[in-house]
């Protein structure tokens, strides 16, 4: 394989894996090497609907509302945020206990608001 072909192949693979990581909500380090998880809130679901964290490890959650104001509430992890309509917020969390938790939207956003939640697994 020529050098050009190898370069193109490598670039293609990197782009593919990056896109895959973005789509699956995988963490990626930010400038300070803190993992970042991107989450989207849109009536009436969070995407991804499950994230996995590590006990004692700090992670940044970057949550974007695609429509109205949403809540982001999980008492065991001390998460109590509001994502204004159409905006993005960032919050860091360092889980202190392992377990599987249900994070909810606690800002009433319409008829099916009551089931807008996501699973947070802490290992």
């Amino acid at each position, binding site marked *: 394989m020529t050098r050009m072909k190898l370069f193109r192949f490598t670039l293609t693979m990197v782009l593919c894996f990056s896109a895959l990581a973005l789509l699956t909500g995988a963490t990626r380090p930010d400038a300070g090497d803190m993992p970042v998880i991107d989450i989207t809130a849109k009536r009436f679901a969070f995407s991804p609907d499950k994230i996995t964290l590590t006990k004692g490890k700090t992670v940044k959650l970057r949550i974007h509302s695609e429509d109205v104001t949403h*809540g982001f509430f999980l008492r065991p992890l001390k998460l109590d945020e509001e994502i204004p309509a159409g905006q993005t917020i960032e919050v860091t969390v360092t889980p202190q206990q392992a377990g599987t938790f249900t994070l909810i939207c*606690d800002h009433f956003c319409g008829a099916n608001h009551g089931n807008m939640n996501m699973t947070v697994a802490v290992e």
Partner: protein
Amino acid sequence: MKQPDRRSFLKIAGSSLGIGVLYSAYPAARAGGGTGGFFDSLGQANGEKVAPFSFIQLSDAHVGFNGPPDPLGTKAFERAVDMINGLPQRPDLVLFTGDLTHDTEDRDVHVQRMKQFQEISKRINVPVIKHVPGEHDAGLDGGALYREMFGDTHYSFDHRGVHFVALDNVTRAKPEVGVEQLAWLKKDLARFPKTAPIVVFTHRPLFDLRPDWEWFTSDGDDVMNVLSAYDNLTVLYGHIHRDDEHQTGSVHHYAARSLIFAFPDPIGATGQRKPMPFDKDHPFKNLGIRSVSFNGAPQPGSASLSIDDIELTAREFRGINGVQQLLRNPNV
């Protein structure tokens, strides 16, 4: 059969109404208990003569909701109105603990739903009707339309020596009371001695019943720190579409069933919160009767109240089964 604490001043007596809850305030004042003198002085202080009375709690009518699972619209609500009007002794007042209407983003539609609620509730032959909003009434617009149609979202009033407090834990969109209202609550209750009979009515539970189903109030601990200073305080609430009883310290919390559909028991249920299925053969299933009896004068160490839950069936009243009677006779 549940055995509430004997110190509760509420007597929930007799076979009460079908879908709501009937309360009688007939406390130790008449039975010659220690608080009898207090009731006399409270009556002198606020100008009202202290006397026993009964009242009703209704909740979660969700006017405007037409299923699934419940295809009956306002039938259960209208049935409740008929039953209240048929009671042998007319209650003094009715408290609605929220979700009077089902939410919609169309303001005109929501106005119509609120007007329909008012038309139905106007048929209740009871002199005083009070409300608090639910999140479906007030969560999307901060309570603006609710205030226009029904008035204040939090307030207090006195009736026959009992102090009633309407607490709003929905208009901030999040399940919370908020700092300003908490300050108002403290100031409002500070006028009363700790033995005062007090009823707080609100929409969401003030404790963590099932937070992942949003059955909680985030500053509920702060609220309970204020309320738990009072020995004869009862909280009535809705939101969970089922009856429930809970105690925090000396405070009893009673949830009322809804007038639209039921949710499952939060204890042990996993996954999403889903309405219980509609049973066309028993259309008012899980919208039953709560009867709480007073077991005579309180004795040291014994419970003075007991609760019986009796499920309402349409057949009791018309002799034919299930949803067919409702479809056949819209006036049921």
